[in-house]
Each structure stands twice: as C-alpha cells, then as structure tokens.
C-alpha cells in the first residue's frame, strides 16, 4: 500500500499560495539552492564515495570497481553502471522491493548525465583489449528523502568519481587494495532541477514543493553546455519557461561544481 501523508493536500495548497506570491516555505529565493555540504571518502573501504547533504536531503554515492568483459562493439572501453536505491529507511513513502519507476528514472538520468558528459576516460579503463576492462558502478543510496534527489544524487556521484582510487589487477583477479592512481575523470557534470508550481518556477524543490509540483525539469550540465535533460510531472512547461530555467542552470551549475 502506497503511503500517503494525509496532510499533503493542505501542504500543497500552502506551497501554491506562497509560490503565487514569489515566496517559499523555507524562506529561500526562487533561484536558491538549500545549504549544500559534500563529504568525500565517507566510506573509506570503497574505492570512491561521497555524502551530499542538500538541506535535509542526504544521498551517499559509492563507487565499486570490478573487472569484466567489455561490450563487443567497444572492446577497449570501460563500462559505467549507475543505480539508485530509494530504501524504506529514507522515507515513509518508499517501499522495499524491486526499484520503483521513480528510482529507475533518477538512476537513468544521472547515468546519462555522467555518460554523455564524457567525464570518465573510458579508453583508459581497458585492462586487456576485448577481454577485460574496468567496470565502474555508481550506486546512489538515499538516506533521507527531503526532495530533489536528482541534483543531490548527481553531485554525490560526481564527487565520488573524482575521489575514486584505482584497484590492483593481478593474474586475472581484482585485489581490493586502493592504489595511489585515481580513476581518470576529466569533467564535473552536475544536475540542476527546477519545478513548476502554479505559474512559478523554482530551483531545488523541497519535499513539500516536490509533492505540490505540476512539472519538473532537470538539466544535466557539463562545463561548456548541456549533456542531459529530463522533464517529469503531469503538468507542462512553456518554451519561455524552459529557456529561462536553462539560462539559470548554466549559472547554478558553476556554483555546484565549487563543492567538488
């Protein structure tokens, strides 16, 4: 049974009324992020990790490295895999079981953002052409769900990738011992998410704002342009709304990158 907070209706009206006046419940401006904290190497046993706090939202990204067979069409290229888990610990609305469409969407949008930004130098991850390459697994684990997992998750993933140390590969086996060399990561892809509530468009939605949203747009930003985008929600955006959100995302992406 899906959990429904009986007070959503009231909270949502409140968010709508404030938005119409250009205000937000936590006093932020429409284009402000909540306070962001990034702690890298949060899980020292993992090759790479980062904990991101974005307001009350907390996401850990952990990186695992495995050796595996490359895809036949890219025999000397490493492999990237991205997952997201919305574990019941993080919110009364999350359920145990196979990944929900929401979790799948988050994982795939972050995956696209990292992949398409060409951030990881995949060709350097070849161990033996056609036989063995490094597989980089990014797992986002939500600890507390208070809105905007897209941005927090992507920031955690990118921060963790930048902090990842390579493992040793000997006689066909991975030795779980962190090396000095780092994972070859060149860029800092980040995501900026906006939601539309009534006619107002705001950055970095809180939980109540996310429940009240009509539509959502996420931009995956890399240093010089766009590498991913995803619209969600049952409502729509006009072209000018998309244009101005995108302009702002270009600015905000720079701010986010400073945390890495």
């Amino acid at each position, binding site marked *: *049974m*899906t959990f429904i907070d009986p007070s959503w209706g009231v909270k949502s009206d409140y968010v709508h009324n404030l938005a119409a006046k250009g205000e937000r419940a936590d006093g932020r401006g429409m284009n402000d992020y909540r306070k962001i904290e990034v702690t890298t190497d949060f899980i020292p046993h993992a090759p790479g990790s980062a904990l991101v706090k974005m307001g009350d939202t907390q996401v850990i990204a952990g990186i695992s490295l495995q050796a595996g067979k490359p895809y036949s*069409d*890219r025999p000397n290229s490493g492999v990237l895999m991205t997952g997201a888990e919305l574990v019941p610990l993080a919110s009364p609305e999350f359920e145990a079981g196979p*990944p929900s*469409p*929401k979790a*799948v*969407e988050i*994982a*795939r949008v972050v995956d*696209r953002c990292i*992949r*398409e*930004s*060409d951030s990881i130098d995949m060709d350097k991850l070849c161990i033996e052409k056609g036989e063995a390459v490094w597989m980089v697994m990014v797992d986002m684990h939500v600890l507390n769900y208070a809105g905007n997992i897209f941005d927090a998750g992507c920031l955690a993933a990118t921060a963790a990738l930048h902090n990842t140390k390579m493992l040793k590969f000997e006689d066909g086996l991975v030795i779980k011992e962190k090396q000095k060399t780092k994972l070859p990561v060149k860029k800092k892809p980040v995501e900026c998410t906006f939601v539309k509530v009534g006619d107002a468009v705001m950055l970095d939605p809180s939980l109540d704002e996310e429940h009240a949203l009509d539509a959502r*747009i996420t931009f*995956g930003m*890399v240093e*010089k*342009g*766009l*590498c*991913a*985008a*995803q*619209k*969600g*929600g*049952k*409502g*729509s*955006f*006009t*072209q000018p709304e*998309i*244009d101005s959100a*995108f*302009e702002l995302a*270009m600015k905000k992406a720079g701010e986010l990158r400073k945390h890495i």
Partner: protein
Amino acid sequence: MGMKSDIKLIDAKGKRLDGRAIDEMRPLKIEAGVLEQADGSAYLEWGNNKVIAAVYGPRECLPRHKASPYGSTLMYRYNMAPFSVDDRKRPGRDRRSTEISKISEEALNKVVLTERFPNSMININVEVLQADAGTRCAALTAASVALADAGIPMKDMVASCAAGKAGDHIVLDLGKLEDNFGKADVPMAIVPHTGEIVLLQMDGDLSPKEFKTAMTLATKGCMMAYEEQKKALKAKYKGGGKK
C-alpha cells in the same frame, strides 16, 4: 548516441544518409481503430518503426491500492518485442522501458480528463514491433490516437517527435545511424494547440544555442505528427462507415 565512426552523416549538399533534408521527417502513417478487443487502438509506421497501441478503460482499478478518488489512474506500458531489434531483446520490463513508460504516462496526464472517472484506471499498452530510432515518440503519438479512439475525453492530443545533432547539424527525427553515431538526441512532446511541453529529454552534447534550435525543430516535428494523428482519426469515419 556518440559511437565513433567515420560515417559522414550529412553530405556536402546538406542531405542526410537516407536522402532527407535537415528539417525533413521520415514518412509517418497512422491508422486508428485496428484492434477489435481494445476500447481504442492505433497502428503507426514512422520510417521503419512499427508500433501498435491499445487502450482499455476506464475500468475497475486493479490493483485496488492504485485507485485514486481524484481521478482515473493512467497506466502506460511501453514494451519492445524481442524481435524488434537486431540483437534479441530479453522480454519484460527493463530500466529503459520503465523510464519511458513513466514519463509518457505523465505527459498524457496533462490532457486526459482523468477527473471524470474517479477510482478507475485506463491502461495504455504500446508494443514496439520494429524499432528504428525514435520509438518513444512513435509510441506516444500512437497512444494518443488510441486514447481518442477509445472515446476518452481529452483537452487535446499529445504529439511527439525528436530532434538531434548529426555531424555538425541540428536535424529533425533522427534515423537509426544518426541515433547511433550522432551527437545528441532531444525527444519532445507537446500539446498542439497551446505548445505546452509535456515531455522533454536530452542526451548527448549540445551548446546552449544548439539546444534551443533543437527544441524549435522538434516542436515543428510534433506539429507534423499532429497533422497525421488528425488525419487518422478523421479517416476512420470518412465515407459513411467504420471500416
């Protein structure tokens, strides 16, 4: 997207591999009301894409906990047949189809008057029989026709088309090679008479200016798809009888 190759996607005259101009869509053909069992249905061919959509409902909502007292629950299922792609696709749900189903469902929620049928559900099932790039747009365009054909009240249709980057050009409606070797893909869906954007995705590498050009071009493509949707629904009752 982004596979490396020496293939030239656009020749010196600005023609694409299949001879299309930069802003030219692949041929699109839609037929409404093709399945007898379904409440509404549509068959669509778009380039080499072949897609069939069926709508059932509104009907009793199962599982019951998905029912909403505020309106009908849309359930969109995008599915690729195992034989639709060169390498057999393992049957059943995967992450890609889960995501496409979710955002397509949300897009249709904007136009369907779900509040007319509280506690019920409307199933929209789309099968991709042959895939040739742009299947999510093809599926959504067909689904919208099937919904109208089921007599389900809607504010408007939803029409979908993608634009992308092949070589150094922003082009409409990527073909398969352009999808594999191109630099970016921007699938979009709009509500035709208001121009509202109900689905927007992007992957690849685009400058801010290119992104805007791609959206403008995709919007044009959506309007072309809309014209075909309209034709299909009008044709069903032309000349005095249902076929």
